[in-house]
């Protein structure tokens, strides 16, 4: 798979939490050639099934594995139209106001007809020389900033409604050493790893039914993954999400190196499944770091684990610098390695995978 081409494609899709229609349709097309069936459910979860390629020895139903990586993105919304035609912003998910000054954004104006029109805007702020000495030392708060559409107030009022979405702009940018930066690497880079795994599995055997899920509404609480897990009713789940890679300001034990996937340990992760994952990594020469979560992981794991009667989960993390900015930076090699690890993990699941889970 050409990972950079995938990143360019995904960064051009808009899909704030709860509004994933466009991105889910685009992702469904990516899964179709690799899976037996692809559906989009009422929360816009993409659920792609790749059926088992070898039967169980006693003819019992194949175990079901759910893989989950989320497709939604943090965004903003129109909170008010000011008398000069600029827009005040509200937040959809955790947007850091520090990234906004002089950023470009896309306003999805619903107009009078409800027909969405995408309009480019620039985020402006009161310039520093008009601020008091004290305010100059502070970051702008979201309430201080505005979106400039380059239009007269009358025109803006005709086109824009309060509640219209505003998405961030961050095209895929290629850097040195197979690294790349874009918006929404969190978590569509991990959906890329799912696609890599699906591609590898075309020439591998597996006795489990594999449900690739590009989940929704993760940034507001993993709500899409929760209903998808009800639908799939998996025996076990592997969640992929991003984690923080080390930067100069990082504190000890809060980050992992950029160049390899990591696996999370802690109560929300089933430790025997984690051991199996680590062994797979070792057997196939995939570099795998580890990190901890003392309770909630801040990923789909938190709700998949308690879906239906409960689901044993493992969590693989792709390290990322500058999370929740429009320059989320990661290593493309780590994306494909994560896919390779996943493919071997799935292919290596034997009928007795659950036997030793709880002792």
């Amino acid at each position, binding site marked *: 798979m050409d990972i950079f081409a995938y990143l360019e494609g995904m960064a051009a899709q808009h899909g704030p939490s709860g509004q994933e229609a466009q991105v889910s349709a685009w992702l469904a097309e990516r899964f179709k050639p690799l899976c037996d069936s692809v559906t989009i459910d009422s929360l816009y979860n993409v659920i792609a099934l790749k059926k088992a390629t070898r039967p169980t020895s006693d003819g019992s139903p194949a175990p079901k594995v759910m893989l989950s990586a989320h497709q939604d993105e943090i965004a903003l919304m129109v909170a008010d139209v000011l008398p000069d035609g600029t827009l005040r912003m509200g937040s959809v998910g955790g947007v850091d106001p520090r*990234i906004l000054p002089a950023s470009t954004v896309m306003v999805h104006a619903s107009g009078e007809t409800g027909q969405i029109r995408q309009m480019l805007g620039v985020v402006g702020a009161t310039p520093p020389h008009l601020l008091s000495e004290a305010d100059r030392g502070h*970051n702008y708060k979201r309430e201080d900033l*505005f979106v400039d559409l380059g239009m007269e107030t009358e025109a803006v009022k005709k086109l824009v409604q309060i509640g219209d979405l505003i998405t961030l702009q961050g095209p895929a940018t290629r850097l040195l050493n197979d690294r790349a930066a874009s918006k929404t690497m969190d978590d569509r880079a991990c959906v890329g790893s799912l696609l890599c795994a699906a591609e590898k599995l075309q020439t591998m055997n597996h006795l489990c039914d594999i449900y690739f899920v590009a989940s929704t509404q993760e940034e507001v609480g993993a709500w899409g993954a929760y209903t998808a897990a009800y639908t799939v009713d998996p025996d076990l789940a592997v969640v992929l999400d991003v984690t923080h890679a080390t930067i100069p300001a990082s504190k000890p034990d809060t980050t992992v190196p950029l160049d390899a996937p990591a696996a999370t340990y802690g109560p929300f992760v089933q430790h025997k499944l984690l051991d199996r994952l680590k062994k797979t990594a070792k057997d196939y020469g995939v570099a795998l770091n580890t990190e901890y979560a003392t309770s909630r992981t801040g990923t789909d794991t938190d709700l998949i684990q308690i879906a239906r009667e409960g689901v044993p989960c493992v969590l693989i993390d792709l390290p990322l610098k500058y999370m929740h900015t429009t320059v989320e930076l990661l290593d493309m090699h780590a994306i494909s390695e994560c896919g390779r690890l996943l493919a071997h993990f799935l292919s290596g699941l034997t009928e007795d995978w659950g036997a030793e889970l709880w002792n």
Partner: protein
Amino acid sequence: MELKNLCEMQGISGREELVRMAVYHECVEVLGEKNVTIDRMGNVIAHKKGTRRNAPSVLLCAHMDEVGLMAISYTDDGLLRVRAIGGIDSRVLVSKRVKVGYFTPDHEPLNGVIGAMAIHQQTAEDRKSVLPIDQLYVDIGAKDQDEAKAKVPEGTPITFDTPYTPFGDGMLLCKAADDRVGCYNLLRLLHAKTKYDTHFVFTCQEEVGCRGATGAAFRLQPDIALVLEGTTANDMGDIPEAQRVCLAGKGVAISFMDNASIAHPALFQEMMALAEASGIPHQVKMSVSGGNEGGAMQRAGSGAKTCVLSVPCRYIHSPSTVCSFTDIEAQYQLCKAYLEK
């Protein structure tokens, strides 16, 4: 030359070579080689004789340089430490894309991004305090210090990576509108049927203190100087009317005074009357703010009558400057009317 090319061209103060050579070649094409020189500061000076005898000498100038960054050192893990060249509020740098090094026939610039700690890991204090430039880094994806140093020598110029984008109603979003719009109009004015003995001066190093203009003004000592600039428009958001400086889309801004110079009252009045009579959209720059090459022009040698004519620019000195095509055209039309009247 197209405005798009000029705005996307890279040229921080002191490193204007790409703009300089592009401008030089166009001047030579229009006025002939013997009428164009590059002076000892790196300004491009083009000369055109006037049609009127004993007319005063006129100098028009626009600056080639833009604000940007310069690489100064490297972190252990291969990030670039940078400093601003010209006045940049560090708050506009977070989460932006840059080009590291220049486009030349045998060299492509590297992509870079300016990141910051994720919101999840910030303390309450982090959220409040502005990240100064010495805590911001350009990330080119280098693995370590040695690689970064080999790819990006100290002093490498870094510019904003902003494609030229018309948007809204007749507005333009770009980098370096200050002052490539002036360069663009100055190139168009080479074709004017000027009555005056006219020098067209494309200056360097305006953003670090009008270094180029000072030398050019001394050399040429014109009777009259017109400065084609891009200036701050504070016309959006909660800004009191009196602090808006000028309004994007409402015409060329004519300054009676700024922090660097005072317009000659008769010249100022002449410009206002000319704009009025010719139906050219114009406005008076409402407040005494900003400084520019008007100062160098006004006080070179025994002095010149000066007037600054600006295109209002929102979010000036940021990666996303916004200005109006109406105002760019108005700046050109007013200068043309003055030279040809």
